[in-house]
């Protein structure tokens, strides 16, 4: 056998071996993929209320452990069991630590949350779909899970202004069915039901009846600190005795929704996240801001954009124009996103700056690196961009002024110029009908809400020029947003005592939330009423971030 032949034989032998042994791995069945040594699942196995985990529900625990040792269970309430599959009932609501121990392999603990029984309250459908103040009767349907057939006791509590079918005030009712009722006040009317089951008082249940006004009026939305988005019908001259209360939209405001913007049929909530003050985000991962979109009735909430990168890229302030939402980051620039976009993750590549500090001729000539952003928008085709740190003022420019590449200085100043230069303008709104701009500043000694024409705005060259334009309450007081670190929120340049102004184009009122530094002027939801010429309270005591008016009139939303 010569060398060539030997190589041939060896090659053939190799190929044969390869075919024989190279494919011995069969694809494993999905079921045979390994579990962890110790693993388990649990679920309610009763025929009803499977997702509720009520007290008394039969819960099945199944070991899915790969290890083969004996299984013992500690249910966290003093009871134990043994076996691969076991069941248990918890007689008391609460959170329990369930521990599975597999002999020779270790243990695993999961929490299980057992809910107390609560009555399920529903409003029966009403004619016309909305409950109108003074006229629409509503009734309720109550379902109470009661597998042990215990005695049931029901006590209802109705809000002020509730009337029964006889037209008399109905403050409470004892029994399962209170019959039909109607309301004499507008807004969310909280109906509370307290139930005793077998003599034991359950946690109370509440349902909000959204009571509409009887004619069409605009709606004001506002974001409450640590609360929900609220809505308020803007009703002038409500009938005597009728209270106009806010609607709880059932949607969380978020962490710091400094701006909310109503557009078309949706409310865009611009939430700059938990960390809105300065942070040295060296790992570039402290961002948690987002833009969400709430339908006007609160029934639908969608995420538009989420930032999980650097905290400085969180969305802070917004403005809508031409099918796009423009939004600022903390202190560098403005980007935009198409209004229809949903579930997007922020990246600077996908959402590049439309304009930034360094792409304006102001850069290095007043506007500096890190110039902190505040409200912005367009008036008569000119951008107005508020800056409250590292170059304070309202920087005005047109699209044509935006440079294609960043500069380091020596630019050409835009002709529009800077307004309120050196001051700290936080928010503004333009009233095109009356041709006046409303703005707030928070410079110590000059804090407040102002109104003037654009010509007058340009003529304000120092804080002393502001005085003629300052707006007051009827008692002569002015509004003073908090600018003390540790008392309000934020520090130098960041104060959010009045972080948004919103105009009702129907009557020219300007709405805003005030976090007041003046003990004699309470914080709250306020407005400047052009009819009276004064700032007025709309709701006292509430802590508000962004505000926005839906000028389209409606009875409900």
């Amino acid at each position, binding site marked *: 056998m010569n060398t060539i032949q030997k190589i041939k034989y060896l090659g053939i032998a190799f190929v044969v071996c390869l075919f024989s042994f190279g494919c011995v791995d069969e694809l494993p069945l999905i079921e045979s993929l390994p579990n962890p040594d110790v693993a388990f699942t649990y679920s309610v196995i009763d025929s009803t209320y499977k997702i509720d985990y009520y007290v008394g529900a039969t819960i099945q625990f199944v070991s899915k452990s790969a290890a083969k040792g004996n299984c013992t269970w500690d249910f966290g309430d003093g009871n134990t069991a043994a076996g691969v599959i076991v069941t248990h009932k918890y007689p008391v609501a609460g959170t329990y630590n369930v521990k599975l121990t597999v002999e020779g392999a270790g243990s695993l603990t999961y929490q299980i*949350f057992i809910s107390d029984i609560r009555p399920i309250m529903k409003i029966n459908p009403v004619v016309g779909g909305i409950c109108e103040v003074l006229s629409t009767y509503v009734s309720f349907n109550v379902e109470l899970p009661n597998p042990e057939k215990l005695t049931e006791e029901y006590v209802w509590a109705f809000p002020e202004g509730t009337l029964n079918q006889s037209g008399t005030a109905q403050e409470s009712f004892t029994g399962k069915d209170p019959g039909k009722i109607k309301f004499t006040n507008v807004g969310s009317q909280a109906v509370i039901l307290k139930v005793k089951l077998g003599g034991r008082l359950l946690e109370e249940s509440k349902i909000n009846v959204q009571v509409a006004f009887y004619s069409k009026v605009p709606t004001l939305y506002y974001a409450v600190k640590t609360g929900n988005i609220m809505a308020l019908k803007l009703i002038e001259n409500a009938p005597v005795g009728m209270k106009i209360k806010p609607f709880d939209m059932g949607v969380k405001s978020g962490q710091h929704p400094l701006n909310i913007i109503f557009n078309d049929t949706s409310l865009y909530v611009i939430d700059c996240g938990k960390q809105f003050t300065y942070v040295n985000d060296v790992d570039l991962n402290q961002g948690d801001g987002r833009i969400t979109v709430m339908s006007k009735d609160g029934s639908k909430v969608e995420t538009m954009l989420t930032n999980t990168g650097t905290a400085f890229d969180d969305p802070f302030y917004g403005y809508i124009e031409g099918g796009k939402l423009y939004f600022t980051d903390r202190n560098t620039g403005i980007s935009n996103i198409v209004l229809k976009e949903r579930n997007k993750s922020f990246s600077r590549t996908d959402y590049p700056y439309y304009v930034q500090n360094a792409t304006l001729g102001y850069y290095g000539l007043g506007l500096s690196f890190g110039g902190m952003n505040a409200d912005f928008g367009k008036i008569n085709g000119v951008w107005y961009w508020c800056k409250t740190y590292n170059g304070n003022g309202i920087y005005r420019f047109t699209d044509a002024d935006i440079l294609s590449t960043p500069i380091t200085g020596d630019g050409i100043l835009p002709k529009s110029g800077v307004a309120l230069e050196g001051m700290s303008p936080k928010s503004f709104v333009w009233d095109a009908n009356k041709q006046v701009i409303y703005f707030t500043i928070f410079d110590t000694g000059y804090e407040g809400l102002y109104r003037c024409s654009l010509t007058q705005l340009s003529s304000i060259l120092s804080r002393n020029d502001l005085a003629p334009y300052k707006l007051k309450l009827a008692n002569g007081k002015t509004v003073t947003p908090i600018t003390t670190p540790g008392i309000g929120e934020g520090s130098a340049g960041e104060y959010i005592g009045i972080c948004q102004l919103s105009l009702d184009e129907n009557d020219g009122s300007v709405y805003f939330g005030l976090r007041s530094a003046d003990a004699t002027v309470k914080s709250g939801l306020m407005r400047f009423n052009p009819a009276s010429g004064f700032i007025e309270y709309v709701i006292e005591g509430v802590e508000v971030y962004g505000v926005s008016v839906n000028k389209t009139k409606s009875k409900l939303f």
Partner: protein
Amino acid sequence: MKKIQSIAIILLSMLLFTACDLHDSLDEDVIVGSMAPQVYWEVASSTVTAGSDVSFTTQYYTTSDAPVDHLEVWYNLTEQVSKTVSCPWMQSITFNYTSTTSLQKRILQKIQEYAHNETNWSDALHAYSFTSTFPTSNTLSSVSWVKPTTFDSTKMVSYYGTAFMQHFKDSLYTKMQAVDFKKMFQGLNLVENFNIYLDSTYNGNTGKYDYHFPKDAQGNMPVPNVINNIYKKIPFADLIFNTSNANYEVEFTKSYFIDANLKAIDTKGVAGTAIKTTITLN
């Protein structure tokens, strides 16, 4: 001959790497399995009222020889609790208790099953598609007790625990300065003239007098017993009462969210999973 030996060794080495069932380098790096169905879904709203159904739309298909058998919605449950209690009487410092927790309360589990239906095929999408809902529990509605105008000690104990109020009071006491006691005692009308308990020292830097409790022999400024005794009798609710807004400075919120996903499972039991979606319950 050496050439042949070298070639043989190389071939045998390759054989060992590829053929060894116990040390299959490919198998050690990845889990090989069957082709899973592809599934995508969109949930209509990221916030729903607890107890209401969540609407979703899905698209799915498979390239495996095993057709899709059914789909399943799974979700877990996380509870978020936020607590804040503050004392508005404090002037020297801000004193508050804050706590935020986020804990998974129930593990991922199957909530609802949906039968696969051939009529769901869409030529336009090149996938099966349908719209449906899955339920949430009405027991998971959020709880909010924020700056109430009336104090409810039962709720306070329920939300903060039995020991909290005394602990808060004791901790607050250790941080209070004379100016804080003065503001609190005068605000609550506990003394007629607080100044009788104070000494003053001229501050050359500010040009004003600093008020403080009298110094003892060691130069310390302990809280006088009479002040301590009055403080002990102050109800907890008064410590957190904000006279400006006529409310109590306590905030408690509890809410739940679910992390949901949709699985498409073929007749071999192989599952494809859609991207996780977080839904807040209100």
